[in-house]
């Protein structure tokens, strides 16, 4: 129908079509242009996200032995994953990392965002400082992890300083290759993901609200807890989604910073991949995906982030 209009319009008024297509044709173009513009994004995400996730789910039902993957439809991989005590302990450890890192990055990210948004008065200084905080995010994560070695190691800067000051008599062993190092590295890598969204929401808070709180006799702390925190909730939620998903799925930080002494779900999957147990790794991956999606659903239940988007 619309194409009829397009062609008849083109035949009837050939000179006009190039500048002013007929009404039906214009509507048709108006509808198809966004589809063409969004097409490449949809295509790439279908091929490199949707399809791979589908393959992941299919392979998770496959059978395997020491040399090959055998197409099948069985739940053995899932019963293996869910029935193993190692899985539960690994999940528990990963949750522990996630909760600690989330708490630390939320407090740190909120404080830094608050200082940037409300304590720095000059617009230029604000932008420059925000950029300074953003730049490390654009450099290599692995290098940023390695860079803790000379600081935290047995003979590292921290230990030798503490020894020299006489505060300790033995080098502290727990600094590097430990849970402490893992949490520190996570905080170092991911706090930016908290700072940026919280800073964004804070910049949109109407400053007159703060003056109103002050005029009504609220002190600084009361203003922060009763005005700024509630109004920054969506930023905190977005930052939390980033931090939670990144820590839940991470394997490289745990491997490098714990020195192979701690486990995480991501590391468990990576190890299964390394020993070519693909169906087991896939079943594990599907469980992880379900857990992560449930955690995000829980965050979205508590905080409505739609007004941010």
């Amino acid at each position, binding site marked *: 129908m619309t194409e009829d209009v397009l062609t008849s319009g083109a035949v009837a008024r050939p000179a006009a079509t190039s500048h002013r297509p007929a009404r039906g044709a214009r509507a048709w173009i108006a*509808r198809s*242009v*966004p*589809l063409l*513009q*969004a097409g*490449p*994004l*949809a295509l*790439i*995400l279908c*091929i*490199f*996200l*949707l*399809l*791979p*996730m589908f*393959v*992941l789910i299919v*392979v998770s039902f496959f059978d395997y032995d020491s040399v090959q993957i055998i197409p099948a439809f069985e739940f053995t991989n899932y019963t293996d994953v869910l029935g193993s005590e190692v899985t539960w302990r690994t999940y528990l450890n990963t949750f522990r990392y996630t909760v600690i890192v989330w708490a630390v990055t939320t407090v*740190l990210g909120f*404080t*830094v965002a608050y*200082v*940037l948004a409300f*304590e720095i008065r000059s617009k230029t200084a604000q932008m420059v400082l925000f*950029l300074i905080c953003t*730049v*490390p995010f*654009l*450099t*290599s*994560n*692995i*290098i940023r992890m*390695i*860079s*803790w070695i*000379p*600081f935290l190691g047995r*003979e*590292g*800067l921290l230990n030798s300083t503490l020894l020299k000051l006489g505060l300790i008599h033995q080098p502290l062993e727990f600094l590097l290759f430990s849970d402490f190092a893992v949490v520190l590295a996570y905080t*170092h890598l991911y*706090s930016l993901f908290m700072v940026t969204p919280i800073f964004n929401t804070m910049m949109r808070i109407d400053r007159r609200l703060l003056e109103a709180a002050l005029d009504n006799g609220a002190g*600084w702390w009361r203003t922060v807890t009763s005005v700024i925190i509630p109004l920054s909730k969506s930023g905190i939620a977005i930052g939390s989604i980033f931090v939670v*998903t*990144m820590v839940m*799925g991470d*394997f*490289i930080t745990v491997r490098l910073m714990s020195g192979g002494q701690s486990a995480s779900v*991501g590391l468990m999957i990576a190890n299964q991949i390394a020993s070519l147990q*693909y169906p087991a*790794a*896939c079943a594990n*991956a599907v469980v*992880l*995906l379900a857990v*992560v999606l449930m955690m995000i659903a829980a965050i979205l239940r508590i905080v409505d982030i739609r007004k941010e988007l």
Partner: protein
Amino acid sequence: MAATVRHYVLLGVLALFILFLYGPTLTILVLSFQGPDGGLTFPMNGVSLHWFHRLFETQAVGDFAGSLRRSFTLATMVMASTVVVSLAAGMAFRRKFWGAGPLFTLTVASLIIPSILVSLGVGLLFNELGLDPDWYSSAFGAQLTWTLPFGLLIMFAVFNRFNKAWEEAARDQGATPWQSFWHVVLPIILPSVIGIALFGFTLSYDEFARTLLTAGSDNTLPLEIFGMTTSVTTPVLYALGTLTTLFSFVVILVSLLIVRLLAAKRAL
């Protein structure tokens, strides 16, 4: 009085945070100039460029030059694709279109699905299709699932603040949609487009997890660096860290300079 004290305490927190972000990187920058007998920690055992020289001998590190070249090419490919695809999709989302909701959900999902899952899935997909994974095919696609959502979210932020009056003025003067995009919209949003390019380039250049199972037989630079962390115990590791970090800083500075120049040109 209390307010002034609080102000400076809070500024101190920000200063400490910045020190926390940059301090460790600065230590490896200093330590990469260790003398030939120096180790992985302080004290400095002389000052030299020894470890930078070692970096370029192929036996010291796997294939540093080759992986650098691959990472640079891949980052450029990802940057160009991210800019074009997210710019186009950003324009699309300004209007209602069929499938806009599901596409948005898919884009957000792309951001929150753990990288290792994407890596594993893409690797298996290529395997099932009988294709060899390579850095320019499977790794390229896997990295785009990470850079495109960022690009699109930046476009959303841009168009939320965009004043449509400029476009309407162009249309009233008889500009075609393409002319109004090319001569009006694009120049206005160009600084943000450069931001997307910067994100696309650096996220790809440093990406590890999504490349791990999709790069095939040839390593990218982050894979090469990761391999070194388990086998290399000399400051050559720091030399490599210093070089890649400096390279990232140069890329960031150049993009910021371009944005500044554009702003200055507009002010004239």
